[in-house]
């Protein structure tokens, strides 16, 4: 039983960390969240549906914990904005150019409301199906689709409004 649990949950942990990091932004808070999530998964293992979808089940635990924390944090000043995140905290892409684009994408992502961000990440990054995403978020598939639509529209708009790296970070261009 225990070994089965470890066998099923362990492969999902890196993806859980990724989702948590994209929501929480800083590494320590994200890993803390994943740890809480795993504790809960271990403690409630017998409550999952035996034939059910482990990935959706455990992402739902993580998501609910994250939303609780984000709502609590919303009452306080904003956490470290992504721009100030330490080097390597979010990504280590290949080139300077790429890194700036990625940073823009993450910054645009950070501007989205939590629930739109969640849909975008679960569908677009974690490769959950629309049905799995609906299960994780506890909403109908139709709502998943409309949130996804709004999220993509908004992210796209934010991205197109971001000045190109050439003009925004001339000093970084020179480094190259």
């Amino acid at each position, binding site marked *: 039983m*225990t070994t089965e*649990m470890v066998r099923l949950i362990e492969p999902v942990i890196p993806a859980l*960390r990724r989702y948590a*990091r994209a929501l929480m932004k800083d590494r320590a808070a994200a890993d803390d969240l*994943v740890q809480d999530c795993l504790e809960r998964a*271990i403690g409630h293992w017998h409550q999952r549906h035996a034939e059910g979808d482990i990935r959706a089940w455990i992402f739902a635990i993580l998501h609910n914990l994250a939303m609780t924390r984000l709502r609590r944090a919303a009452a306080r000043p904003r956490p470290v904005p992504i721009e100030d995140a330490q080097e390597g905290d979010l990504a280590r892409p290949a080139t300077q150019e790429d890194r700036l684009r990625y940073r823009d*994408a993450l910054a645009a992502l950070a501007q989205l409301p939590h629930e739109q961000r969640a849909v975008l*990440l679960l569908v677009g*990054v974690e490769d959950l199906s629309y049905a799995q995403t609906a299960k994780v978020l506890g909403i109908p598939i139709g709502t998943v689709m409309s949130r996804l639509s709004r999220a993509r529209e908004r992210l796209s708009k934010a991205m197109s409004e971001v000045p190109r790296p050439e003009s925004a970070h001339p000093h970084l261009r020179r480094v190259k």
Partner: protein
Amino acid sequence: MTMRPITEDDLHGYVDGALDPERREQVSAYLEAHPDVAARVAAYGAERGMLRAALAPIVEEPLPAELDLARMVEARRRPPGPPRWAMAAAALLLVCVGGAGGWLLRGMGSAPAEGLQALGREAAASYAVFAPDKGRPVEIRAEDRAQLVAWTSRRLGRPVAIPDLADAGYRFMGGRVVATEHGPAALFMYDDDAGSRLVMLARPLASDPKAPMTPHARDGVNGFSWSDNGLGYSLVGQAAPETLHPLAHEARRQIHRQA
């Protein structure tokens, strides 16, 4: 053939690769005919790719120690406590004290037979809760026997033996720690080929070791209780007393030999 109109959902399905080949084909044709929509869909796809690339390195990172699942499971089983030698010493002390007068043991003050009757009631109550449970009758299964022994022994403050009833046709399924009015008890469960289940409950019990094995029956659950070396045991099930009695004797014999 008339085609269903292309919807906004189809466009996202296209971006996420969630469409069946036929629909995908139709959306492709539509996008070729509508460059403005095609540009929007292409941007969605590019941004999706960018987010994936930006977040991809996170899954490659080595997992921090605090997210080691096997270790977390282990820590829950054995919460941080005194070192093993100290636990062993404490268990030894308990045994000595128990032998010297049993003043630390629960169930103290009750007459021997009364203690065994209380134990029998607790065993029957545990049986009623856990034996009918299809999905999760036990918390730790037979294959993790060592963990189960470690856990129950720790909670009971003394080594607990698991009798083997396979010769009588009852396979050991596993067990758990359960609550009784007299503190934690170890529950072990067995079943036979017909799916009939037995439960053995063990917990500290100060009782006259010479007290005879005590039968009890309650709500269709039969059982036999005895005590040995400071622990009380009760074997219960829906089987007839004639079936249970020899099994209880066998369990008592094995436990006594291992003690």
